[in-house]
């Protein structure tokens, strides 16, 4: 569906994207992960034809973006980081304008469809300048899918939404992934975990890791970290015979908070719980600490060095 071949984008002396190649299959959800300024937005802008690459090629459904932009752009639905909305138009007028720009034939049908899918009925005839941030984001999403594109490109689609809307949006992206190819960027690992089939980690314009979210976090995690809240202080001797290390122990009012780590290949959680309760210590909370993007990221950078 999408082929990007050794993409480079320079802004003067700064190299924003450095020799990035990747491809996206049909009905695949690909996530771009990376800290701010990693080059995610610039990459997406080259994919969608907003920026001309300094060198390298983008093909959408086999059509070259630089040589035949008019044709290639028809296949793409794009939601930029800030939804590109006209405050002086109503939601309906705006989406109709987008549909016209894309040469949609059955405009009415498509408008009804996005109104339903993006739950826009409450604001359908309101001015865009008067609707909330969450609705703006949904109008942006509707803008990206109104012409039924085969590739949907979403730049940080859940930013600025409340938790309920984030869940709705993620579900929507998942369901879109069943019929379309989706590329989305995010800096939230859990989001990539939940929505993406495959993740690419980008730093300073370079690809530093790629794979399914599970594989990425497994590969990068040689140890599992568990946080516990228990009734009293725990001595190291309690864990004799199993490869558990106490990383930290601190007093929380009348309880204690512990951080433990053990090798990722053993699942020692039930054993830990058993030993603690058998020792007569009350166990209030036991939680696995998933690595954050920063931790994965730092480990990746370390590997590179």
């Amino acid at each position, binding site marked *: 569906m999408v082929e990007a071949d050794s993409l480079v984008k320079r*802004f003067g002396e700064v190299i924003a994207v450095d020799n990035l190649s990747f491809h996206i299959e049909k009905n695949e959800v690909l996530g771009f992960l990376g800290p701010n300024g990693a080059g995610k937005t*610039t990459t997406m*802008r080259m994919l*969608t*034809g*907003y*920026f*001309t690459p300094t060198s390298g090629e983008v093909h959408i459904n086999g059509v070259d973006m630089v040589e035949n*932009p*008019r*044709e290639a*752009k*028809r296949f*793409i639905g*794009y939601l*930029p980081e*800030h*939804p*590109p*909305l*006209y*405050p*002086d*138009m109503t939601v309906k*007028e705006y989406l109709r*304008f*987008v549909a*016209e*720009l*894309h*040469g949609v034939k059955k405009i009415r049908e498509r408008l009804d469809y996005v109104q339903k899918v993006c739950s826009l009925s409450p604001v359908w005839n309101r001015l865009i300048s008067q609707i909330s941030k969450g609705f703006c984001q949904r109008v942006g999403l509707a*803008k990206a899918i109104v012409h039924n594109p085969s590739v949907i490109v979403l730049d940080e689609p859940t930013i600025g939404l409340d938790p309920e809307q984030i869940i709705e949006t993620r579900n929507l992206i998942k369901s879109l992934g069943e019929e379309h190819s989706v590329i989305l960027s995010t800096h939230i690992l859990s989001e990539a975990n939940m929505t993406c089939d495959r993740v690419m980690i980008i730093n300073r314009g370079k690809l530093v890791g790629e794979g399914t979210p599970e594989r990425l976090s497994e590969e990068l995690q040689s140890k599992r970290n568990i946080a516990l809240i228990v009734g009293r202080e725990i001595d190291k001797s309690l864990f004799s015979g199993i490869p558990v290390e106490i990383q930290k122990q601190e007093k929380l009012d009348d309880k204690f908070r512990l951080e433990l780590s053990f090798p990722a290949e053993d699942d020692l959680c039930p054993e830990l719980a058993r030993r603690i309760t058998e020792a007569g210590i009350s166990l209030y909370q036991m939680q696995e600490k998933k690595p954050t993007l920063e931790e994965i990221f730092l480990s990746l950078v370390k590997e590179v060095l």
Partner: protein
Amino acid sequence: MRGIGAIYRREINSYFTSPVAYVIITAFLFIAGFIFYNLLSYFALQCIQSVRYAQLYHTVPPPMNINSWVVTPFMQNLAFTFIIIIPLLTMRLFAEEKRQGTMEMLLTAPVSSWEIILGKFLAATTVFLVMLALTFIYQIMLIIYGKPDIPPVLGGYLGIFLFGLALIALGMFISSLTKNQIVAAFISIVLFLFLWIINWSSIFTTRTAIQDTLSYLSITEHLREFIKGVVDTKSLVFFLSLTFLGLFLTDKSLQIWRWKG
């Protein structure tokens, strides 16, 4: 070509659903009406006076030419008013898109940059034509109540129309250079004023090549030909090439935007 239609309709809606078009058109009509009223009143006063003198000295009153007293100065002042008014129409065309981030959606839509440019250009031209057409009422009044020479009236309107096209294209180009509407309007006004007075410095040189170039570049000189009722190919080509230059530079400016961001 569907892009032109979609962009054109959006721009027209944007002009007429916001107060922009109404405020500009009203302000323009106030100024144009004021100019016409004063020119006509002065002309009427002169007529009465020349008739009184004739009665006093028992002679035939000299013929009064409504074209040179009303039509010509009205056209010139009208054109000058557009130097201030047209930048107000063109300032938002691209600057606003850049500021609110909608440029990204226009440039990633499956339309060529020429479709975007022409859609916007035609929309601004439409508003301009509405203004120009409304002032034609004054000419109709002159034709009903007086006997103006018709070719200068039509020639003058054709000239101002072409002059307006060139200003809109150049104003749009300047708007595509900045995110700030005020800056776009200001630079456009300065550029248009400069083109208006560019031939003034031709008196300081005796080299005819420079004099000719300056007078060829002067909007005023070309407009004068039209207002005389003479449709000169040289002046026609001048305004049309200025228009095309503006459109062409806008296209280049969008391409640079794609490179530099």
